[in-house]
């Protein structure tokens, strides 16, 4: 479980203080997913980084399974926007990197790792370097890396945004499959309404200029079969889009 209470982050520069996010309250139940949607510059990456343990200077509390965020104690799988693969490591070494750092080679034995790679369709690519892969393949490797860790929480920053529309949908399905299997509490940030609706059990809309949450929505469509074809899905995404738009427009006018 991830619980965030009254979280604020301020960036200090030499001359002034800038508030990135303020007064955020969020909860992700065990094995749940939360989508955070918001325009660029609204602080959604900041929020994700706090949960990832990358920003230690924050006010409020952020707990993972009842304990304060600490990358040394918890296993946090963080997938940055550009996949975060090391260009000088082969696919296989990149996937094993997390286990190596956690000093936990027993987490996933060779057989399981192979199985995971096969599920992701990258079993033949182990000895290649990331530059030799397509964007979609790199994304798969990044997914293999975080899931191989069997993390306490999974955090994804604009996970599938660099992919073309068809590959993106394919990756979303692969993600859901793995998520069902490993049952990891997940927070992801996106600016696609459809992605939020498809992958988010719960959706939080981050306001454009105040840095807090303007709406939290329990997604009734989540987990349904072929919901992308469902007229309800269109209706919901339109509704969500309009709400978000209104919220962001208001922010602009203020």
């Amino acid at each position, binding site marked *: 479980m991830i619980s965030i209470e009254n979280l604020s982050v301020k960036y200090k520069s030499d001359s002034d203080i800038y508030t990135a996010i303020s007064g955020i309250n969020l909860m992700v139940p065990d094995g749940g997913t939360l989508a955070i949607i918001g325009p660029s510059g609204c602080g959604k990456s900041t929020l994700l980084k706090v949960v990832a343990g990358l920003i230690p200077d924050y006010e409020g509390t952020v707990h993972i399974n009842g304990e304060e965020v600490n990358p*040394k104690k918890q296993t946090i*799988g*963080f997938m*940055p926007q550009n996949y*975060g693969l090391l260009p000088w*490591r082969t696919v296989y070494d990149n996937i094993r990197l997390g286990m*190596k*750092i956690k000093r936990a080679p027993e987490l996933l034995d060779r057989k399981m790792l192979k199985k995971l790679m096969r599920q992701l369709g990258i079993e033949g690519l182990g000895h290649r370097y990331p530059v030799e892969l397509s964007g979609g393949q790199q994304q798969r490797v990044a997914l293999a890396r975080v899931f191989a860790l069997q993390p306490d929480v999974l955090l994804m920053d604009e996970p599938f945004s660099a992919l073309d529309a068809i590959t993106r949908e394919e990756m979303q399905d692969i993600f859901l499959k793995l998520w069902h299997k490993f049952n990891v509490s997940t927070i992801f940030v996106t600016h696609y309404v459809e992605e939020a609706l498809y992958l988010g059990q719960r959706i939080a809309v981050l306001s454009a200029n105040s840095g807090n949450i303007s709406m939290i929505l329990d997604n009734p469509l989540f987990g349904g079969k072929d919901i992308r074809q469902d007229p309800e899905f269109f209706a919901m995404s339109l509704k969500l889009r309009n709400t978000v738009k209104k919220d962001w427009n208001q922010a602009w006018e203020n």
Partner: protein
Amino acid sequence: MGKLVGMWYLLAAVVLTAIWFVVAQIVDLPIIPSPVRVVENLADIFMQYIAIHSLYSLWRIVAGLLLAVVVGLPMGVLMGYFPKTDKFLAPVVYLTYPVPKIALLPILMLLFGVGDLSKIFMIFLIIVFQVVVAVRDGIRAIPTETYYPLYSLGASFKDIFFEVLWPASLPKFITAIRVALATAISVLFFTETFGTQYGMGYFIMDAWLRVNYLEMYSGIVVLSLLGLILFTTIDFIEKYACDWQYKN
């Protein structure tokens, strides 16, 4: 591919030797002997006279190089990874970098004597600055996001060093050594003309004073080959250690 590249190198060697040969024929003076005679002479005297000198030179350059790596690499890493360290060290490095190190040779000889130590230290001084600057810049060029997945896993500095800092700066580090090595060999030649009876610099100047041009040329050829061997070794290491750069 590898064979073809080797062919081109061989061709270049043949062409350069041919030019030397033609110039020697045209000029027809003892100061430019024909390459054929130089090679003959080299074959005759290498084991007996030159080998020991080349080993001395090789030792000095390798020792200076290793010293520069041992000092320069940690300094570059500290300056590149910790901005605060850079703030203090960068002015020192930048103010001392442009000082022509060779001009410090008299001081070094007074401080460390005319023997090996001052020569090795000279080579160290030439190479170390390039290593520091290259490693620092190499590390600075790493995008911050590269560290995020490692930080969020609670990676230690050791992890960060071996997984990111070292592999990311290695290509720039090797390039710096390659560039600095050319200067270092010239400087080595110069330092070996003082206070020693061993080394290629001594051998070449001694042959010159004895007006034995054939021996002098043999020495020049050996010193050049020494440089070539060092260069190709470094190239080989780079190809092997940074093979990820040559993909795609």
